[in-house]
């Protein structure tokens, strides 16, 4: 079993502190939902975990099975088993999803002769049409196609932990269900640990989190079971006490 442990994480953007001491521990096979209104620091957390250069970590640690990730380049964090499903996947003309998976597996020393079959099989499970495998990744894809292809890469690269940054934004009900179902299968088939960042409980109806955390002003202010999402649905974020527990 693997553990992703976030301890007292503080981070700033352009000198403004956005994350003010996050503590969170995720084990293999668990699904954690992180909910919060716009500006609470949700997306910042996802990019800080992945090591995006425009975020400055001022305190704390993030370890994957005891290995400190902070200070490592993004690609090393991915190689060690962390995967970020982006809220806004970037268009890369002329680079297909197969090219990406091949390049990533090569770095890991994994044989790449089966990539075509692997990508085709995952495309089948996720309902991704062939033309989206031939085109540059995300190039003129709809919101749903982007998220299906993000999930396809997640499945093909089989990391230990996945951060889903608003995977539910910009996609229709069918795509949401297909994507959530595939992620849920990975939690049981390959023990994937999941941090699902969202501000709607629509996703959680499909993904069935074990834990729900509420992020306000850079702190996790409440942690509970799935019932917390339902409470939030009733009260809104205004009803949540924003002092850290």
């Amino acid at each position, binding site marked *: 079993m693997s553990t992703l442990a976030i301890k007292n994480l503080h981070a700033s953007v352009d000198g403004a502190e956005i994350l003010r001491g996050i503590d969170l521990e995720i084990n293999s096979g668990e699904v954690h939902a992180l909910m919060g209104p716009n500006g609470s620091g949700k997306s910042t957390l996802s990019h800080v975990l*992945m090591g*995006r*250069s425009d975020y400055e970590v001022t305190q704390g640690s993030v370890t994957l099975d005891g290995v400190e990730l902070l200070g490592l*380049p*993004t*690609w090393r964090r*991915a*190689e060690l088993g962390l*995967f*970020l499903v*982006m809220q806004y*996947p*970037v*268009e*890369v*003309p*002329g*680079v297909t999803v197969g*090219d*990406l*998976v091949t*390049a*990533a597996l090569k*770095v*890991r020393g994994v044989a790449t002769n089966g990539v075509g079959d692997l990508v085709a099989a995952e495309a089948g499970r996720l309902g991704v049409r062939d033309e989206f495998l031939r085109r*540059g990744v995300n*190039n003129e894809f709809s919101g749903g196609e982007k998220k299906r292809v993000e999930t396809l*890469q997640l499945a093909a*690269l089989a990391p230990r932990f996945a951060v889903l940054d608003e995977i539910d934004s910009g996609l229709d009900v069918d795509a949401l269900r297909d994507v959530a179902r595939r992620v849920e299968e990975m939690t049981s088939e390959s023990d994937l640990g999941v941090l699902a960042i969202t501000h709607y409980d629509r996703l959680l109806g499909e993904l069935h989190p074990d834990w729900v955390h509420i992020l306000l002003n850079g702190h996790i202010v409440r942690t509970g079971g799935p019932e917390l999402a339902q409470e939030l649905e009733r009260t809104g974020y205004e009803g949540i006490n924003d002092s850290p527990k």
Partner: protein
Amino acid sequence: MTNPFSPAAARAISGPSWLVKRRVDAAEKLATTAWPSATEEIWRYSRVDDFDPERYHPDPRPTKPETAPGGGPFAAEVGARAGLVVIHNGHVVHRELDDALAAQGVWLGDIADAEEKARERLGTVTDSSSDAFTLLHDGFMTGGACLHVPEGVVIEKPVVVVHWSEGDGAAIFPHTLLIAEPGSEVTLVERAASASAAKGMLVDAVVELLVDDRAHVRYVGVQEHGPQTWQIALQRAHLGREATLRSSAVALGGEYARLRSESILLGEGAESDLLAVYFGDGDQMLDFRTLQEHRAPRTRSDLLFKGAVEDNARSVYSGLVHLLPDADKAKAYQTNRNLVLTEGASAESIPNLIIEANDVQCSHASTVGPIDEDQLYYLETRGIPPEDAERLIILGFFDDVFDRLPVPDLVGSLRRSVIDKLERCTA
């Protein structure tokens, strides 16, 4: 020193009398025309001020009757074909055409041997877009490829023209004349190269694409000239009613390689797509001037030029979309994207738009910059190190255009050239 490009020099080159007369007329006009300078807008940023005609000599004869029979691997790499013309130093040295097409009246051969009805359309584009270099071209052209597709004839496989030029100081004037009569369809692929060892060559080329009413033409022009070759080329298409042109240019070679690419939409409903990809390295300069000129209603044009520069290379893209008063309900789009891969390299991008018609749709976009940070980050989040990610993004940038070329067999060779350039890059 005597002028190597005088009317007397033009007269001295052999050929049929009509061609000699045409040459002399042009050379006489040239004698009273000043060479352009970089102070003129159309030559801004160019290297034209370094041009010295006395460095070159006209009509270098092929050293051997035919260095590569049938164009050799250079032609073979283009893939299956319906016909082939091989041009060595501006002289046609080989031609072949599918018998069935010849029986349908298709004519492929040397312009110098072309029949009257093709000959009378020779010079259509140079006459309407002339400058000192088209006069120089007309004054010293020794022939060239002529493809005449009669009304309604459809040619499935591409017709291939290969140009091979060599010789220190040689000035070569390749000419291509495509006449696609009403309702015909054809794909013409031209591949040009010059010897990498040749010192100081000049290739002054003209491509005329006459796309008559309802004709559909696909054209691919690839230049892989040697590092000491200057290319100054004009490619111009005249499109009739409901005619379509899908043109692609690939520019990889040359010391200074300039292409004027012009599409004139003369007939209602005509459509033109201009695509180009270029990659400069070392001290190369690649220079593009484009024109999408709409003269009729409901015409559509789309342009996508994508290029990269590395080392100390430079590129220029200057493009004009011009919608004349008759071009109601026209649509015109223009996009130029440049990747600047090293600090010493630079790219200029100047899109222009003149609208004199009503109810039109136009857009233009241009970008110049290094590899996109967001793309790099995206690839890194998949576990791809930055050096690998950069290479993938650059190759993808080119593949995005290569994948649209109507000659898939040639893509492997073009990709190898791109990879060679990337590997040569020192920065």
